[in-house]
């Protein structure tokens, strides 16, 4: 726990402001719901899209169906609830994959510099030159619909941002005397990068990644909405909104609740991002260090 004293102070600073506390609660709730949804969902077959109840179609919100039912008579609440699990999988999958590609590229480019660094960063820049959403759409359309393809498409459009972040951090860390100390101890470059560079350089990147999950969810929803994301009957929020789109005039609840879920989740992540970014502000960092008793 002592390794993370700075992070703990940041958390306490966040907990003090009401908006950031709310955003923290939203994000944590999202994760808990996402993990437990498959177990607690009231109408499992509806949620997974395995049913067709003709007599229950387009029912407005009621006690048995708090979010109403959709065009196929399925409980919207169950589908939205299970949708959180899919959003969680997408968020973790996209960001995780982007990190797996981006971090090694950035660390190697930053640590070695020179030719290798230049080549790797030029490749990164090439990817960064595309408008990210456009790139994702093109990739997703090319790969075809499906959850895995969606995750891969988004990850490919995402990794260069991490690569760039990591590259910059690595450049700072590699000049630190403790890296020299590791070299003198005889550690091979690979070990130095994994044991010393990454733990010290990656905090800002991991923070950014955790918060990017919100944006990943939004982009995935967007891609599914326009039809290049997941396949029906996957209860992904974006797809749910598009399914409810045609009936929005007479059955508003079908599109509304998934849309609300996206809104709340993404706003929660973004507000948390703002709060954390504030604490990354050098002036506030100084305040934190001051409060930890570190001499300026």
């Amino acid at each position, binding site marked *: 726990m002592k390794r993370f004293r700075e992070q703990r*102070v940041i958390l306490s600073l966040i907990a003090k402001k009401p908006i950031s506390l709310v955003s923290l609660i939203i994000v944590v709730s999202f994760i808990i719901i996402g993990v437990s949804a498959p177990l607690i969902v009231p109408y499992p077959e509806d949620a997974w899209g395995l049913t067709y109840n003709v007599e229950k179609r387009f029912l407005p919100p009621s006690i048995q169906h708090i979010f109403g039912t959709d065009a196929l008579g399925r409980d919207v609440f169950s589908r939205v609830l299970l949708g959180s699990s899919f959003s969680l999988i997408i968020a973790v999958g996209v960001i995780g994959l982007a990190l797996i590609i981006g971090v090694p590229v950035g660390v190697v480019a930053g640590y070695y510099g020179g030719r290798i660094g230049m080549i790797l960063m030029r490749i990164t820049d090439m990817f960064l030159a595309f408008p990210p959403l456009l790139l994702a759409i093109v990739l997703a359309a090319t790969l075809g619909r499906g959850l895995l393809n969606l995750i891969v498409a988004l990850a490919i459009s995402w990794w260069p941002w991490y690569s760039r972040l990591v590259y910059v951090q690595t450049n700072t860390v590699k000049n630190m005397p403790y890296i020299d100390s590791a070299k003198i101890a005889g550690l091979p470059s690979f070990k130095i990068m994994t044991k010393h560079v990454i733990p010290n350089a990656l905090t800002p990147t991991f923070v950014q990644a955790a918060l990017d999950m919100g944006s990943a969810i939004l982009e995935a929803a967007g891609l599914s909405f326009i039809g290049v994301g997941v396949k029906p009957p996957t209860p992904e929020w974006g797809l749910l909104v598009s399914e409810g789109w045609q009936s929005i005039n007479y059955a508003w609840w079908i599109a509304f609740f998934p849309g609300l879920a996206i809104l709340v989740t993404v706003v929660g992540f973004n507000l948390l991002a703002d709060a954390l970014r504030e604490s990354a502000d050098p002036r506030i960092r100084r*305040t934190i260090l001051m*409060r*930890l*008793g570190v001499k*300026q």
Partner: protein
Amino acid sequence: MNSQPLLQVEDLSIDYIIVGGSIKAVRNVSFNIHEGEVVCLVGESGSGKSTIGLAIAGALPENAIIRSGKIIFKGKNLLNEKSRNKKTDNIMIVFQDPAATLNPLFTVGEVISDVIRSHLQIRDKGKIREKALEAFRMVELPDPERIFNSYPHELSGGMLQRVVIAISLSTNPKMLIADEPTTMLDVTLQAQILDLLLNLKKKLRLSMLFITHNLGVAREVGDRIIVIYGGEIIEEAGSSDLINDPLHPYTKGLLECIPRTHIRHSRLKHIPGAVPDLKNPLKGCIFSDRCSEVMDVCRVVKPLLKEYSRNHKVACHLYLEGKE
């Protein structure tokens, strides 16, 4: 010597609020500085010396709280003012790292002009530049015109430190606070800067609070030396008196562990133990847990700073008892 000191620090106590408590960094500190006098505040890390300098200059960090005391400058208590106008006080401060003090995006000419304009209320560009070049010449900078147009990264460490001193002198301050101004410099450069400061002191009748951890530097530059340990003043005397006749065991210990170049030591003397934890300062004498001459009373009763011989004050029971 004027009867009224230029600066009077009375019973000053400052805490730093940190996670898990507070650091009692400065406790009941009192001393004076007269006009034209250089007083060296000597202490190691954690002694509170920088805190005192920052308090006088009005530059304490946000988590510092002044618990009690007065800082009386030219008759006014600086701590009283609701919105203290630092510009009219005319106390300037020079820090350890000149590169950190200067904004890399501006030429040093722009920086000094800004300071002159705001402190001396001069509008005329020509006059400002004149004063700036005069300040550069006073610190013996070669080619002041070129320096005026240079950016900090184009100048060497020594030149930068001179520039920073020039900036602080450009407003004709009554008092200069120098916080370890030569600690980061090479030894020959340090000698140059100390020589410069002594010349300036003579020429301008400058009053200075010089903060350092180096007793050798303090001896060279200071008229009087105040030794501070763990937030408390433990000895105060004229420079020669302090060096030739140190009273407090800490002062003696500090002098003994300075390695000398003209003899070969077989083993360096050192002060065993470590600096005190100021979250919970010792009840009695702050040095009692490291003192080789500690007595029972030291652990229980805090010795007050009392004058032992002419102009030589010490806070130590070894000398208080004798007085009885």
